[in-house]
């Protein structure tokens, strides 16, 4: 298959494909064009790395632990539900 030159895809198009690329949602041809562009373009390559870093950062965000009060409230409700609806 013909190797498409880098200018086949420009930066502004490439950055909009990043999430599709990471999701494996590009066609084989699009993926090849995207990878060829990023390989030769330090800016888009930095952009892609930063998006991957952002995904890793976001993955470490954990919700605060549940307060004992909130847990007690729900447990009380649960008991009531079980009483109302013994299933």
């Amino acid at each position, binding site marked *: 298959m013909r190797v498409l030159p880098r200018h086949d895809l420009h930066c502004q198009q490439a950055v909009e494909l990043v999430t599709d690329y990471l*999701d494996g949602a590009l066609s084989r041809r699009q993926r090849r064009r995207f990878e060829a562009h990023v390989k030769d373009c330090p800016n*888009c390559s930095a952009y892609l790395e*930063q*998006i*991957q*870093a952002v995904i890793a950062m976001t993955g470490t965000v954990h919700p605060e632990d549940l307060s004992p009060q*909130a847990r007690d409230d729900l447990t009380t409700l649960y008991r009531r*539900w079980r009483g109302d609806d013994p299933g």
Partner: protein
Amino acid sequence: METEPELLERLRDGDEEAFVMLVDRYQQPMLRLACTMVPSRAVAEEAVQDTWMGVVRGVHRFEGRSSFKTWLFRILVNRARSLGTSEQRYVPVDPGPAVDPGRFDAAGAWAEPVEPWADASDARLDAAAWAPAIKAALDGLPPRQRQVVLLRDVEGLSGSEVSAVLGISLGNQRLLLHRARNRLREAVTAAGGRA
């Protein structure tokens, strides 16, 4: 740690401890998602409570064809929407670009170089150090972007699970995710790109 199918089995038997363990695991993520869909924290809490009631009543019917998490969030989204939603459900997703067109020259190349963060590989290792900055930036996202990124990148649902939970197409799910990640990236860049 007990697996989810085990917990669900116990919940079907009316085991309170299993209920508390599920609440501990999911209450906060549910609240956070609900807050993006309704006008106030109080309404979000109501939606979450309704959801738990739906889970307790419906767990006998849950067949495990989707993951428990997907089932749970789907119930939540339905409850939140029925409780009077502040989101514009029927507004189409804007298909425009995520990255500001002003960042590119007439030929579509970056007008200014993209400065690598201090060290992208370090940044990844120190991902946890960025949690507070990311948390703040998440709060500033438009609701629909926040919903998608919470479910995908915080909760780890797949793209198709998210589109099922929110009732949006896979393509729109990805558009919103891309826009959200781009904004988070801008927030980290603005914060100096180093932890």
